[in-house]
């Protein structure tokens, strides 16, 4: 009984950490550009794909492969922003959001073309020998996920509070007009926000695909849940994204454990609708 609960909690925290990473990616772009960035879902897929190539085509060891995959997704995200979004020179949100939808479709096409449509399996970062913690057996991959999520959040906190680029991004988030008046370069801020969103999505993809399988649209569902997590925590708030991600992961794993696992994926969206109904600004929203 108690071990079951503990098992579900660990499972929930693991998937919650993934949702939190994706939710943070949504928040970064939303804060600087004011749009929902649908390409985020493909950054997740892309992370897994680059990891696959780095491991098996380049034959890199695990840790450099992870770094390379995350960097490549960040680069791809910057390219998307530079050639896909900026030339539109539009400040109409409807146009920009539809552009991200279109770019996301193209990105899925590219992924399908380069890596094919088949399901692939990615090995976990360290061999799958379950570890016993307080009576629950936990896969090492879950520990990696939790550990690297904490590292990513720490790096992000440092970046947003200690570097001038991070500070200028927060300035844009809090007041775009005032930020433009004091001469903060909008282009560089947008490019950086995409790079961060890409890196976060890519990291989530690298970490989660050994648990799920790797497929050209694996990111769609994960991305949607990441968005639901962002709303749950309060869209745009970083602590909210983390809390929302973990909360959603726990809810999902507990409901799968105690209710039914067939509709596990539905829980996220029911929660999303309930939150919008009861407390639209989310748990920690302003």
């Amino acid at each position, binding site marked *: 009984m108690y071990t079951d609960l503990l098992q579900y909690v660990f499972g929930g925290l693991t998937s919650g950490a993934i949702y939190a990473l994706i939710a943070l990616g949504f928040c970064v772009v939303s804060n600087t550009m004011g749009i929902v960035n649908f390409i985020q879902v493909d950054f997740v897929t892309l992370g897994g794909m680059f990891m696959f190539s780095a491991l098996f085509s380049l034959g890199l060891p695990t840790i450099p492969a992870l770094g390379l995959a995350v960097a490549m997704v960040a680069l791809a995200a910057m390219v998307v922003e530079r050639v896909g979004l900026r030339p539109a020179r539009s400040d109409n949100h409807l146009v920009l959001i539809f552009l991200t939808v279109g770019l996301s479709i*193209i990105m899925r*096409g590219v992924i399908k073309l380069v890596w094919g449509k088949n399901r692939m399996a990615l090995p976990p970062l360290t061999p799958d020998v379950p570890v016993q913690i307080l009576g629950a057996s936990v896969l090492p991959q879950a520990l990696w996920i939790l550990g690297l999520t904490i590292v990513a959040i720490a790096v992000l906190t440092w970046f947003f509070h200690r570097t001038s680029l991070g500070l200028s991004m927060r300035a844009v988030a809090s007041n775009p007009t005032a930020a433009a008046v004091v001469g903060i370069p909008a282009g560089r801020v947008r490019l950086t926000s995409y790079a961060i969103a890409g890196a976060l999505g890519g990291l989530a993809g690298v970490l989660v695909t050994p648990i799920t399988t790797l497929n050209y649209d694996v990111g769609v569902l994960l991305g949607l849940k990441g968005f639901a997590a962002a709303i749950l925590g309060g869209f745009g708030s970083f602590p909210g994204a983390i809390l929302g991600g973990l909360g959603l992961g726990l809810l999902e794993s507990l409901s799968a454990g105690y209710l039914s696992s067939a509709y596990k994926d539905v829980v996220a969206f029911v929660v999303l609708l309930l939150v919008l109904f009861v407390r639209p600004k989310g748990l920690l929203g302003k």
Partner: protein
Amino acid sequence: MTGRQNLLYFLTLHRTGLAVTLMSAALLAFPFVEDNPYTLGLTNLIAINAIVVLGLNLFIGYTGQISLGHAAFFGLGAYGSAIATVTFELAPWPAMFLVAALVALIALAVGIPVLRLSGHYLAMATLGLNYVVHTVLLQWDEVTGGPSGFAGIPSLTVPGTVIDDAVGLHYLLWGFAMACLLLCLNLVRSGVGRGMAALAGDETAAAALGVDTRATKIKVFVLSAVLASLAGSLFAHCYAYVSPDTFGIFASTDFVIMVVVGGMGSIWGSVFGAAFLTLMPEWVEFFDTYKDFVHGGILVLVLMFLPQGLITGLTDTIRVRLALRRRDHAAA
């Protein structure tokens, strides 16, 4: 005024009515010119898509909101009709309107909480709804038939005949599509429609002018969901078979592409967009392999270069060119 001026004045004054009459006449005559069931099947599919896109375009173009889940309402209409007529043995026509009313309630339940927020929460909420609907259609197999679909849906009947051949369906579906087109054309020229147009232009200004922005958004959202549900019911009765894959989230993005290609806020453009996207696989040979590139590419290119849509965008560009040329001639 001379006779010519009179005629021109008459034509401009009644351009919408005349265009609808002309199109109806063309559609009435079409089965006499073309009776190939394959071609008629395609044009029938255009009619079904056009009904969904008309509603979606009212919502996107006139309230400035995004729905990425209209395939859910489409699917609920289709499965609703299927279950009501086969499992509960209701008559198809009442079932269709009953299902549309239920879908309206669902749209209301989603729309009321989400549309009171500013920003684009609805895009994700509808996407989530679509995912939920798709999952339920797949998983709840004792009711929906699961992944293998739902077969044996009866055809629609009018007193005297059963509508099950391509020509009969042509008249039925285009009859519905033209009725929806007229409804939308009239709606956007009514007082309510002017309010909607104001809302699309500037929400704050519209609210200051006395448009109840929140209620308007919800009403248009529900209307568009009802149109999608009706189209879904027609789809189910037309093909006698439905399967969950027709109503996934990618179908929703296809509807959005139809809206954007036709031009956001352009009623006639909706029909054009539906036709363009439905016929495209027929013209492009390599379509299957590169479907994503073609669809995504069209969406991105139209948004970048002609954000008003293909038809409005091109005519505007040509008009500007002609005006510039006239000015140059006048100067020279």
